[in-house]
């Protein structure tokens, strides 16, 4: 979009309206223009419906009584300890003032429609004949499992800085990148064919990436906002879920054609019928199913990948569900519930709740971790810790009981582990100097033994597939991914990129959950 022409429209519309003596028309046009500014610059984080997403809701209710002058300075300079970028120079002063006025007078919008047909029409085919693609990687790599993908958000959550960056985790060299237009959020690797990866953005676009030639071959848009994406064990299906609107869609992983869409609604644990955001979506090596969390409805749905895609609903799992990880060959799912600070263990085979385990304070398990120590399988769960209790919960996943709550320096977002690495890494996200750090918990003693000063806002640690290196995003203000030796914890490399966030090793398709045996899934076959 061209800001200036937009702004001119605004002024022009105003001038005409004055001439005609009709201010209602001008207001409508101004609102229309500011709605466009909001959708083009703010919606990928604050939600297309003004209802919040990664960033807080900004609408007439939440901004009531806020000083427009104070809001203007936040828009101009950004907010240092969050992802909010400075819009000075990006938007004109009239646009900044105009969008604030628009937001302070506009209520949260109703859940918009996004149909299967909208999804189908959004498919872009960039490589028509996939048989023309190279038969093997066009770069040197021992094993595709060594690929690490980084979701680079870009400072503005969109634009030239937004991309998925792929790195050879043996050499720490960048091997390719694909532009995603808006902030990349999740990268999934096809478990059945090493050449395909799927990148999902915050604006619910999915890019099918050919890792051999490092290019996008197709893309599709499944909604307005939402990071949820999972892939089936046979690599044939993708399921994508949205915050805006409240839906989820099953797609053909090859063509990205939508096959079925689900309206996410249900009765929450308090007996109220609610429309719901999509939380995590996960495929499992144990069966041809997807599990999806309905955040607000507190339900987990199990979708069978057969004729009609039937759904089994598991109700009353928790209040405000979010992310999850698998254990026991993918038969059990550990899912975090923000509002009652528990992690619920779900039996995907029997399709019922096994137990609810204590999980610190506002649990966010990220990709989760599980390690086998002295014959016990221990699960690790991080939590945002928006209260005094900042711990990492350790559960015995066989007995489904809490083993220990390890005190850490602050709130945490994602634990990383590897069968061959001695430490479980957790990212401290408390909004002060601690945000620069990552703490390491010794697998055996279950105590914090070291704090790494990574810089920036360090988060989303991930081990390389062989466990020899620990990759960490220095996040916003850090603008690099930092690599450490897993044993000596010496810094060995830094790879610059704009606002890196999630890091995804292709090793995940082999070990299912980070920390388990590097051939966990192979052993199931």
């Amino acid at each position, binding site marked *: 979009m061209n800001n200036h022409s937009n702004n001119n429209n605004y002024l022009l519309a105003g001038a005409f309206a004055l001439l005609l003596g009709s201010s209602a028309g001008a207001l409508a046009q101004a609102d229309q223009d500011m709605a466009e500014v909001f959708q083009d610059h703010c919606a990928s984080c604050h939600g297309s419906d003004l209802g919040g997403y990664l960033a807080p809701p900004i609408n007439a209710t939440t901004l009531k009584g806020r000083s427009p002058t104070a809001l203007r300075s936040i828009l101009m*300079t950004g907010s240092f300890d969050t992802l909010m*970028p*400075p819009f000075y120079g990006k938007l004109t002063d009239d646009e900044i003032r105009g969008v604030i006025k628009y937001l302070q007078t506009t209520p949260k919008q109703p859940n918009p429609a996004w149909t299967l047909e909208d999804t189908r029409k959004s498919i872009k085919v960039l490589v028509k004949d996939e048989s023309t693609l190279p038969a093997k990687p066009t770069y040197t790599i021992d094993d595709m499992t060594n690929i690490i993908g980084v979701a680079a958000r870009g400072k503005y959550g969109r634009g*030239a800085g937004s991309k998925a960056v792929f790195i050879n985790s043996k050499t720490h060299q960048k091997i390719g990148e694909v532009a995603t237009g808006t902030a990349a959020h999740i990268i999934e690797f096809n478990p059945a064919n090493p050449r395909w990866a799927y990148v999902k953005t915050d604006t619910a676009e999915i890019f099918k990436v050919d890792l051999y030639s490092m290019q996008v071959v197709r893309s599709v848009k499944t909604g307005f906002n939402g990071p949820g994406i999972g892939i089936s064990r046979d690599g044939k299906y993708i399921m994508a879920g949205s915050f805006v609107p409240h839906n989820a869609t099953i797609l053909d992983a090859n063509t990205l054609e939508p096959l079925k869409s689900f309206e996410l609604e249900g009765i929450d644990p308090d007996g109220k019928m609610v429309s719901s955001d999509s939380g995590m979506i996960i495929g499992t090596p144990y069966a041809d199913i997807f599990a999806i969390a309905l955040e607000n409805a507190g339900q987990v749905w199990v979708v069978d990948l057969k004729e009609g895609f039937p759904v089994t609903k598991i109700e009353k799992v928790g209040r405000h569900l979010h992310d999850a990880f698998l254990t026991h060959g993918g038969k059990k799912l550990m899912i975090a519930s923000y509002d009652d600070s528990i992690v619920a263990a779900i039996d995907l085979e029997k399709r019922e709740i096994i137990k609810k385990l204590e999980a610190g304070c506002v649990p966010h398990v990220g990709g989760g971790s599980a390690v086998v120590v002295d014959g016990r399988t221990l699960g690790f769960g991080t939590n945002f810790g928006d209260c005094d209790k900042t711990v990492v919960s350790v559960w015995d996943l066989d007995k489904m009981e809490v083993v220990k709550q390890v005190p850490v320096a602050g709130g945490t977002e994602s634990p990383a582990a590897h069968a061959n690495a001695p430490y479980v890494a957790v990212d401290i996200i408390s909004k002060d100097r601690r945000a620069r750090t990552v703490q390491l918990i010794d697998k055996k003693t279950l105590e914090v033994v070291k704090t790494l000063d990574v810089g*920036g806002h360090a988060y989303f640690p991930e081990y390389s597939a062989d466990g020899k290196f620990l990759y960490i995003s220095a996040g916003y203000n850090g*603008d690099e991914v930092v690599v450490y030796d897993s044993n000596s914890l010496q810094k060995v490399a830094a790879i610059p990129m*704009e606002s890196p966030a999630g890091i995804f090793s292709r090793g995940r398709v082999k070990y299912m959950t980070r920390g388990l045996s590097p051939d966990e899934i192979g052993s199931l076959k």
Partner: protein
Amino acid sequence: MRLAIVILGAILALPVQAASPYVGQNKATASCAQCHGLRAPAEGSIFPKLSGRDPEYLKKALRHYRDKTRHSEIMNAMAGSLSDEDINDIVSFYSNVKP
């Protein structure tokens, strides 16, 4: 006695004179990097790159913004609260970063 005064003077003066790129990095992260980045500003933004720039120029520019002898609504606000020591630290950091 005289020697003691000289030494004491040197010790007292030390923290003021020795600009630290390490301290500067923290201060730059808090005050400047949001727009100018630690190494480079965001792609497609209008903010000038500070890394690798001439230290004398950077110091002068920051002092002028602080003292409002150079006008920019946003820079006057951002630099307004910086001390000479802050400026020296920040400049010591940026001028030593490879662009």
